[in-house]
């Protein structure tokens, strides 16, 4: 597998020159195996990736969606393959409880929010919702999705191919309080559910070659309820699951290149050689 970063920024795209070294596009990764690219998330990074996919002539495209917060879907209407004939796009997510994934995407792409309705695009677009814990195949990659601790229905992924495994754990508050509680009144089972969600993140990341992890916060910036982790949380997860590498991801808007450079150094030291630490960067390619 080869993993390429097309968007690494959380919340909304940033365009200030001092942040463009690491990149300003919202989340999007391409994972290539046997000449097919599987896409993770549809932030604004998907715009450039879409053009690359059209150039390559790939007409069967799978998108693994973590969740439907704006920063993970708002690149989709700008995805070039949508407007191409003989193209099939399948968007995967976890099972939704209320509105379907299809309905949420139709809502994003309709008048008067966007000039081209999803019903009028040329590609054949399908939506598939998976059970928590289900494993399915996308090309030659085995994909498992598990629910994470984040407001709404949010899932992470584990991608396995041959002997290599990558985990995408974003967006998630790994060690914070239960964030799904608003769906149900607080109850004595909350602690249990929280433990379950933490275990699911660990399952995804278990001994992975790389864990791409939501590390939006620094410890002193942490806000409960936002559904994001700190870089220290990311390190804790990598340690607990014996991961080989940690990719800091979903960088906070405003965090500039100099700061990310120094955070990368600092947390590499902190990992003490137990595993690699890299700050995700637009254009970064990692072969596994």
């Amino acid at each position: 597998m080869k993993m390429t970063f097309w968007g690494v920024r959380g919340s909304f795209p940033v365009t200030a020159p001092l942040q463009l070294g690491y990149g300003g596009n919202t989340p999007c990764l391409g994972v290539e195996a046997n000449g097919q690219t599987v896409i993770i998330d549809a932030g604004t990074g998907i715009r450039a990736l879409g053009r690359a996919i059209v150039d390559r002539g790939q007409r069967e495209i799978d998108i693994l969606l973590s969740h439907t917060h704006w920063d993970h879907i708002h690149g989709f209407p700008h995805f070039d393959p949508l407007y191409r004939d003989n193209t099939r796009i399948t968007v995967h997510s976890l099972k939704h409880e209320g509105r379907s994934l299809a309905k949420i995407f139709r809502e994003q792409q309709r008048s008067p929010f966007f000039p081209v309705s999803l019903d009028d695009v040329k590609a054949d677009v399908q939506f598939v919702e998976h059970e928590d814990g289900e494993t399915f195949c996308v090309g030659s990659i085995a994909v498992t999705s598990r629910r994470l601790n984040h407001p709404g229905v949010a899932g992470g992924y584990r991608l396995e191919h041959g002997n290599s495994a990558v985990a995408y754990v974003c967006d998630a508050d790994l060690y914070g309080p239960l964030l799904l509680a608003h769906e149900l009144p607080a109850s004595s089972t909350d602690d249990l559910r929280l433990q379950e969600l933490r275990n699911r993140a660990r399952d995804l990341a278990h001994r992975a070659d790389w864990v791409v992890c939501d590390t939006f916060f620094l410890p002193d910036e942490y806000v409960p309820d936002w559904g994001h982790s700190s870089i220290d949380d990311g390190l804790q997860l990598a340690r607990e699951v014996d991961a080989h590498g940690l990719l800091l991801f979903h960088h906070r808007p405003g965090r500039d290149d100099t700061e990310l450079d120094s955070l990368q150094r600092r947390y590499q030291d902190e990992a003490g050689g137990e595993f690699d630490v890299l700050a995700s960067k637009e254009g970064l390619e990692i072969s596994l």
Partner: protein
Amino acid sequence: MLRVKLWGTRGTVSTPVAGNARYGGNTPCVEVRTDDDVLILDAGIGLHWLGESLLADGFSRGEGCAHILVSHTHWAHIQGIPFCNPMLVAGNRFTIYGRGDGDNSLEGLLLGQMDSAFCPVPNFFDDRIGAGITISEIEALEFDIGGTHVIARLVHHVSGAVCLGYRLENGSASLAYIPDVEYLEEDHRGPSLELAAGVDLLIHDAHHTAAEYAPHRGCGHSSDQDAVDLALGAGAGKVLLFHHHPDRDDDGIDAVVTSHRNGDFPVEAAREGEDYVLGADS
């Protein structure tokens, strides 16, 4: 007097690429200050950064008040609202003006953007959360905000979009803002000519270049030449080419501006961070 500052000049989608950095990659947002009021034209991602600057200015204490005039509800013109942090501060007051599309009110559309399926930010349109926010569906096309006279006109954009252009008048200063417009027939120019008549500064859609325009006819946008023609026809003092195409880089925009240098009409391209003072000498 009107003091104008550009926070977002890019059309359609934010462009975080170094080659666009000089003219800027944030979607539309223009700050207009009078001696007393804060007015904001459109609420693209530029609104996030304008919001951060307002926090340094009374809005962090919940003492701020601002008026946002939205041209239309295509994402690029409203997507900054969830990330406008002064809206999370209780005590601040915002009024958002604009129009829905007939089937949906402006309020319904803006609430749709805050829906928890899409938006992780607390819904500050709820009275109990954050700033006091009033959403005002524009009925009469002329009204006053403090000492500023606002004229709104429906302009032709794409089918399904109810799109407004604005004219702001304060003392002897005047500004017209027409970010998304296409002139498919002569009649379509009427509302823009009215808005821009004799203004000090016209901010106008120039999504396409004249050379590229033909295959995009009917897609709802103008070319640089349309913008200049409209400015000349309306007797505007100066035109700012705005709503840059996401793929037009700084050199490309420079080339467009240079192509107008031989005419004696002042043509500039809107550059994020630039400011203009209108009506200062009267």
